């Protein structure tokens, strides 16, 4: 009797896994009704897949039946695969039972489009409503927006979900039209815009009236597939930047395309997913969001693609050696943040610690910076005399030689951030 539900879960989790978002943070839903769950504060990764991705949400499709035929998607109409569909009750029970055992932070629910957009969205809304109202579930819910769904349904969904997302899929309209002629970026922008406006409206009401309900408290996100179509990194990151600005997105996810189709428009099955490229895009995204870099500083017409061999922060530093060295004991915080090998936490510690006295090499090493990398770009109390300015190629050579093993041992795999 276990077999049917196991098979369904197998099919519908498998079809959902290509959506890489796993975040469960940024919400402020507290357990105030003595119900179950708490989505306050930062999310928790309850386990990690063998490819090192965080697992914090039960990520499933309601169904993988779909009336569309997007070439990059396993659930596309023309693909000859097993199809399945959960009932509303099954999704609710799985979520509750996983949550109660501390397996997950919540639910990430998406779906293929069956019949039409509203019919599908209505089912999704019914599930989240049941979780919130009947089960008094306060855990995290990430709900996919179905393109073309009515504003009434979007509104209702927003009252129950913590985060909503809708994927751009391809970085440019041109790329999307190539693989999914039935789709457009405009139909992604419409619901993003509607929900963003509602969030703003709810927030301003909240300032006046305390009892205003929550509306998508963890905001919206989107995903861009990398490497299915031939766009440059610049096109990808500029699109991301525009969407961050226009729709106040919380996150843009970059998903290295994993070949799943023999379609001649796409990379062939068995080719390596572009994992280093994907990782570089995330690093660049971090530089924009946390390190104060403008997208034009990272990528521009002279430099339209991210380097494979060095991360974008180091790459920027090497292209802008005139801005270095930064004096650790007197330099501006924002410049210290730009030094390769120094992260946000150590930059903060540095500016705190230097109030008590000048910082020497041994202090810096203990504060947890990547000293061997940073030393090319900084001056400190006992830095050695430097007779001539080194040029970029030389520094890059030294850094690469020192970190060789790290980069060569596993060249196709995901690297960490900085």
């Amino acid at each position: 009797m276990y077999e049917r539900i196991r098979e369904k879960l197998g099919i519908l989790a498998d079809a959902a896994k290509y959506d890489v978002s796993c975040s469960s943070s940024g919400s402020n839903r507290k357990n105030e009704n003595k119900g179950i769950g708490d989505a306050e504060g930062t999310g928790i990764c309850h386990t990690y897949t063998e490819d090192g991705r965080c697992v914090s949400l039960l990520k499933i499709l309601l169904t993988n039946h779909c009336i569309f035929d997007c070439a990059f998607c396993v659930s596309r109409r023309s693909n000859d695969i097993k199809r399945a569909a959960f009932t509303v009750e099954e999704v609710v029970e799985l979520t509750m039972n996983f949550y109660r055992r501390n397996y997950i932070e919540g639910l990430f629910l998406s779906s293929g489009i069956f019949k039409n957009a509203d019919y599908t969205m209505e089912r999704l809304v019914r599930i989240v409503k049941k979780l919130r109202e009947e089960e008094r579930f306060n855990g995290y819910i990430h709900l996919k927006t179905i393109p073309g769904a009515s504003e009434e349904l979007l509104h209702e969904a927003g009252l129950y979900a913590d985060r909503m997302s809708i994927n751009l899929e391809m970085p440019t309209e041109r790329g999307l039209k190539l693989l999914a002629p039935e789709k457009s970026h405009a139909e992604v922008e419409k619901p993003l815009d509607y929900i963003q406006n509602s969030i703003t409206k709810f927030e301003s009401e909240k300032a006046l009236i305390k009892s205003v309900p929550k509306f998508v408290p963890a905001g919206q996100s989107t995903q861009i597939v990398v490497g299915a179509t031939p766009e440059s990194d610049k096109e990808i990151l500029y699109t991301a930047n525009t969407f961050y600005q226009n729709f106040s997105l919380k996150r843009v996810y970059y998903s290295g395309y994993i070949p799943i189709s023999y379609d001649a428009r796409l990379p062939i099955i068995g080719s390596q997913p572009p994992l280093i490229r994907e990782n570089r895009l995330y690093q660049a995204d971090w530089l924009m969001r946390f390190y104060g870099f403008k997208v034009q500083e990272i990528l521009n017409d002279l430099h339209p693609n991210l380097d494979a061999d060095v991360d974008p922060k180091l790459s920027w530093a090497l292209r802008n050696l005139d801005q270095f060295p930064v004096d650790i004991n007197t330099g501006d915080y924002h410049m210290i943040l730009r030094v390769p090998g120094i992260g946000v936490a150590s930059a903060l510690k540095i500016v705190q610690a230097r109030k008590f006295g000048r910082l020497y090499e041994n202090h810096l090493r203990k504060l947890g910076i990547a000293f061997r990398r940073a030393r090319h770009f900084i001056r400190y109390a006992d830095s050695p005399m430097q007779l001539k300015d080194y040029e970029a190629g030389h520094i890059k050579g030294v850094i690469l030689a020192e970190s060789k093993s790290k980069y060569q041992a596993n060249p196709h795999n995901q690297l960490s951030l900085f």
Partner: protein
Amino acid sequence: MELYIFDGSLEGLLTAVFECYQRKSQVVKLVSEAHYVPDVFDAGHRVVSDFEKGKRVWKGLCHKLDKEWQLRFYKSFLSEQPEIFQHLLQFARYIIDQPAGASENFAHPDVLAISQMAQKVHREKHRMEAFVRFQKTADGIYYAHIEPDFDVLPLLPEHFQNRYADQRWIIYDLKRSYGLYYDLDKTEEIDLDTAPQMSIVNALPADLLDSKEELYSLLWQDYFKTTNIPARKNMRLHVRHVPRRYWKYLSEKQG
């Protein structure tokens, strides 16, 4: 140098700080009873834990340390590491002797050691919050046991109580033989006479379990396998996130 021996409790450690001032000691070496090797030539000073003395020192520290630092002090104490007792004693004296704000001096060896140890303990607390796997028992209690490197149990109630307010649960530390029990109202410390062994991971005997327990742990294992993308396999990254010593907690890693 003077040798101070204390009973290993937080109260004892704070009392030791008090006595440094009372006895006008200069350099003090602090060891806990458990790590003390008697020495015929150096009898050392025995610190007797004293609630009032401890409270006065803690109050003095709270005066100069923000909430974050007070918690750091407590967390690094929970590490139970012999060398951290020494750092805590020196740190407390440094903070008391200096004007407020000295805790920002990360170039100071004791400040740094405590902030780093607190970070480690915090990381383990966070890992426990993530890796605890409850099993539902036949009488409706959700049970999990752990064997943390540090004594993080006292840091856990708030998180689990907020999250699982409507279910009874037990988290039991097998290494230190005590646990937490939440009874829908409050969380209390408990002892179990017959706690199962960690080697039979997360596996209470089947006759103690809820009839649906097997199904859900099976579905979770299935889910874990399905969600993996083989083309992206990267075990090095995987092990960095989930060090092998934690695998025993994870039902999805069994079988």
